């Protein structure tokens, strides 16, 4: 990081965004360690642990919710100023928002470690803490709206889309701070976060980064990217909203959701396909020279790859009601979730966080190779881990759901797959720690450029 290409961050918001991105990367490092402990617990009988499996898993899922959220908050502040070429409404509020989101996020992890929770999957923490996260999202939404309104004539589509994404993050989490007695309502509301945060809100907040990156690196021009952006935003909202239906198949909703959920899920594939086409065309016509941009592209292309394969194609396959009937609730779903959640969302947030934290630096060849190696190890680890889960899911589907064998008898037969999952998870954790260390070094080297 010794060849400085820009000495200062241009706006205060961009300086503040660094603390969000660094915290996100640190929590991501923690996540792989927690996940690995949980995976080990499943293959080693009576493994002693200060935190029992059920709370360790809850911490793993809470981390999966919140490190991307914190990274996204930083990315949105960074790229909205880049898009609008002006400061945000209140940098002070952005600083407060950081402490609020960190306080409540860490409170969720801390209380879960003390075995205090609310037992709703992916939202296992006490509802009061989610109210705190909502407060942080309210501060973000207010700050972004005021920023846009400061100069109404110069609102770019990417800036508006990111703001709408942030508002959706708030609106979708807010009902989840309520305790519902009815399990149908409870399940349905939960998927507004579990599904809609990723499939709609985070899709919208990520476009600012994708737009800026594609334009700056020369992979696409503004006209091309804005055309994609309009379609992406429209389809993310329509496809995301109705696509939630594929989570509503068997929870007590009417059968019409089988049709809606499966057909509308098709729509979600279109913008990813367009992004792939645009990237392919861009890479054919333009050779990226900056190592910083190339490393960002490695991370971004990893995201696009899993978006197409693990999230869209595999996701589409299991949304077919006849397939879902048998595979739902098996390890197959877990394999898909790892590819879709970390594969597509995690990698794009990591790409954005790296891009934000490396602003004003250019890696040496050795550092670049180290970064690429970390990304490759992460990818191999993820593929091994997810493939093991998918294979376990196929076997489980056949023996448990088709042949009707006893659940525990089947589960014991899945042990070899779960051991392979641990091996993949170990590799993933190594890649994660290597990449996090690399990004930490980038952060330290660029600290003085602020």
């Amino acid at each position: 990081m010794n060849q400085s290409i820009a000495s200062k961050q241009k706006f205060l918001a961009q300086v503040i965004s660094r603390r969000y991105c660094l915290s996100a990367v640190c929590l991501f490092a923690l996540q792989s360690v927690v996940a690995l402990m949980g995976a080990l617990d499943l293959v080693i009988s009576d493994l002693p642990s200060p935190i029992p499996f059920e709370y360790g898993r809850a911490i793993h899922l809470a981390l999966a919710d919140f490190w991307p959220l914190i990274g996204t908050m930083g990315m949105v502040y960074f790229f909205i100023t880049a898009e609008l070429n002006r400061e945000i409404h209140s940098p002070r509020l952005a600083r407060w928002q950081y402490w609020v989101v960190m306080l409540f996020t860490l409170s969720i992890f801390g209380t879960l470690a003390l075995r205090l929770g609310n037992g709703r999957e992916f939202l296992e923490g006490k509802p009061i803490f989610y109210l705190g996260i909502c407060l942080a999202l309210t501060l973000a939404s207010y700050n972004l709206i005021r920023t846009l309104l400061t100069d109404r004539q110069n609102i770019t589509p990417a800036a508006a889309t990111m703001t709408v994404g942030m508002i959706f993050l708030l609106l979708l989490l807010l009902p989840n701070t309520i305790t519902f007695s009815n399990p149908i309502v409870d399940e349905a509301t939960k998927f507004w976060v579990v599904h809609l945060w990723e499939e709609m809100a985070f899709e919208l907040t990520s476009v600012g980064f994708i737009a800026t990156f594609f334009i700056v690196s020369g992979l696409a021009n503004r006209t091309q990217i804005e055309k994609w952006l309009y379609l992406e935003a429209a389809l993310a909202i329509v496809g995301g909203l109705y696509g939630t239906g594929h989570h509503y198949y068997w929870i007590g909703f009417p059968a019409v959701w089988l049709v809606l959920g499966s057909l509308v899920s098709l729509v979600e594939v279109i913008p990813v396909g367009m992004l792939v086409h645009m990237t392919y065309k861009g890479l054919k016509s333009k050779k990226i020279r900056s190592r910083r941009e190339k490393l960002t592209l490695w991370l971004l292309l990893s995201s696009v790859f899993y978006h197409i394969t693990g999230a869209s194609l595999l996701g589409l396959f299991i949304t077919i009601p006849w397939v879902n009937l048998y595979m739902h609730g098996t390890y197959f779903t877990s394999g898909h979730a790892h590819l879709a959640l970390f594969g597509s969302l995690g990698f794009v947030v990591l790409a954005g966080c790296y891009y934000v934290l490396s602003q004003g630096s250019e890696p040496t060849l050795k550092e670049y190779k180290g970064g690429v190696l970390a990304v490759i190890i992460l990818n191999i680890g993820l593929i091994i881990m997810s493939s093991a889960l998918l294979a376990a899911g196929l076997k489980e589907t056949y023996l448990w759901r088709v042949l009707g064998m006893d659940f525990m008898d089947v589960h014991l037969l899945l042990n070899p797959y779960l051991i392979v999952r641990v091996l993949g998870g170990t590799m993933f954790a190594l890649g994660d720690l290597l990449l996090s260390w690399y990004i930490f070094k980038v952060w330290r080297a660029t600290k003085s450029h602020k």
Partner: protein
Amino acid sequence: MPEQAVAGKLIWQKNNCVSCHTLFGHGGYEADDLTHITATETSEYLINYLVQAPVMRPHKYARHPALDEIDAENLVNYLEFVHTIPTLGWPPQQEQVEDDS
């Protein structure tokens, strides 16, 4: 929804049962789905299981978390309520699998 079932849902949540078990197929994959467990096991058996928690396979020592009798009754009431929710034929039963094939 009966009062006891509402109380049972809170017991389900308080004990973080969803980390290992699934309801409607949503939750952890390490233990059986409990959506229709009351169709195959009696209330007495389930309450007894929860109060005198057995060692969980394949562990030699680790036991299933134990509940007191009232909490166990409420939880089983909740599972009885969940069983009444129409799940459009999910999970597939043996006869259904044979019909499909």
